[in-house]
């Protein structure tokens, strides 16, 4: 990345974040809530895109990492009464560790086998959530206790029943993850990641450990998805098995493809559009899963680069 491309991307990301921040002052309550959900899901999609967009690995099992964060945070709060920051930290760590172990296995496969194996692991995770219903309460899920609606941190107390507080926490997480990914991609390690995506054999023959490079991104991706899951559990106070289901893996894929795989802001854009659309449609029909399916097919067949990917191709080659 050249210096000017670096500046452009930093500037664009900054503008988007400032806009998101100020939206809380103009949006009505209902949309503040929806915005909060969107930003958390955007973090999930961001983690997914780190893997698909920047090392070229298509996982069909990322709900597993979202769920690892969700349950890692939710269960420790519900059963052990952990404080929210501790539960959040634990959940992110647990997802990263899970990604390290799973990654070490699945990264030995490529292409279609990679998709199938990630899908299988995710199904195992989903079934485990149902199997350990004594802890997770399975399909029905658990609502976190009222005591978990407040965060005590450095002497201050944050009230999670306030929509604005939740919005800002979600915003902070999204900003942090965007900056983290940006810094990673702009670094030497980020260059190795995209080099692996563009030409794996060549990259290995330049002396880079391709497996380690993929694993590193896999862990980063899993940790981010897990952070999103943990935030979801703690901000909305509910954990349930749907979040571990295949549908959630597909949604991450859809958000990313629609916004543009391999673009920093694509996942966020994809989430904004898709969630808004599903919200509007679900007022009209209960068949919103069908809509997801149709959009997915249309995007893959006629619009494979997504919105920002197309903009990059036509007008803005500097887009990261």
């Amino acid at each position, binding site marked *: 990345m050249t210096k000017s491309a670096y500046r452009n991307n930093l500037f664009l990301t900054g503008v988007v974040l400032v806009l998101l921040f100020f939206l809380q002052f103009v949006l009505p309550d209902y949309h503040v809530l929806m915005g909060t959900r969107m930003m958390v899901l955007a973090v999930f999609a961001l983690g997914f895109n780190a893997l698909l967009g920047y090392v070229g690995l298509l996982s069909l099992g990322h709900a597993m990492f979202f769920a690892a964060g969700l349950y890692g945070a939710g269960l420790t709060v519900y059963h052990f009464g952990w404080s929210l920051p501790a539960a959040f930290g634990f959940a992110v760590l647990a997802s990263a560790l899970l990604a390290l172990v799973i990654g070490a296995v699945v990264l030995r496969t490529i292409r279609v086998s990679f998709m199938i194996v990630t899908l299988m692991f995710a199904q195992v995770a989903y079934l485990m959530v149902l199997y350990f219903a004594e802890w997770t309460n399975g399909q029905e899920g658990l609502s976190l206790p009222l005591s978990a609606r407040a965060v005590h941190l450095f002497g201050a107390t944050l009230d999670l029943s306030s929509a604005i507080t939740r919005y800002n926490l979600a915003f902070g997480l999204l900003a942090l993850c965007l900056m983290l990914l940006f810094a990673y991609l702009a670094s*030497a390690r980020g*260059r*190795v990641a995209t*080099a692996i995506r*563009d*030409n794996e*054999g*060549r*990259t*290995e*023959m*330049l*002396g*880079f*450990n*391709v497996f380690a490079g993929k694993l590193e991104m896999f862990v980063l991706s899993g940790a981010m998805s897990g952070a999103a899951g943990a935030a979801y559990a703690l901000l909305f106070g509910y954990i349930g098995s749907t979040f571990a289901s295949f549908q959630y893996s597909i949604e991450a894929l859809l958000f990313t493809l629609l916004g543009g795989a391999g673009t920093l802001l694509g996942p966020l854009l994809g989430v904004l559009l898709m969630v808004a659309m599903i919200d509007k449609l679900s007022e009209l029909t209960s068949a919103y899963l069908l809509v997801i399916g149709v959009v997915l097919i249309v995007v893959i067949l006629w619009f494979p680069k997504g919105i920002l990917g197309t903009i990059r191709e036509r007008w803005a080659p500097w887009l990261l």
Partner: protein
Amino acid sequence: MASLTPLLVTSGLKRHFGGVKAVDGVDFTLHEGEIRAIIGPNGAGKTTFVSLLSGRTEASGGTIRFAGEDVTRLPAYKRVQRGIAYTFQITNIYQTKSVADNVRMAVQGRMQRVGMPAFDFEAETAAALAAVGLSDRAETIAGELAYGHQRLLEIAMGLALQPKLLILDEPTQGLSDAEIENFLSLVRTIAKRATVLLIEHNMAVVMALADRISVLTRGQLLAEGTPSEIRDNAAVQEAYLGA
């Protein structure tokens, strides 16, 4: 010219693909500083042999020693870090990156090998591009280069790694006569700093460059010697005529 330190030694090196004995028990010694050519008919096992050296293919038997170390089981990227660079027979570059970015990756590859000293990234990149004459195309997208220039880029990446051993697999394939002239002087420059192992079909190129020639047929070494020894070798002539 060749010194007496062996840089690379293979003993009984084998690679079988099912029933195909692509490389079948090769004992081969390469000395530091020499330019060695490997010749042989199509399907003789030349590409497989150098793939074994670079680690892109795993040996079915035998050993490879490089700079005194057994590298037979070392993964390819570690061998590159030890100083073995390989340019692909079929051009293999980052099609969508600029020419300079392609070379930058190679420079970065070398940087992680030698640690992270104060290292002038841009100067190293520019030097490798200048050496192959691609400076004025630095910002071109690599996939849009003419074929001959893509071959040169491939070599520039090999150069930027500053390897101890540079393996070139049919580097002049598809080049024009003028480009080949340019290539000859390029290899001579490279050979001042590195040992060169060259697979080549063009006998004029081989005769002009090689200190020694190894002849491979059906996965085995048929003969080895100076260019004139090989030219006069009856068995070699027969193998070629028979091929």
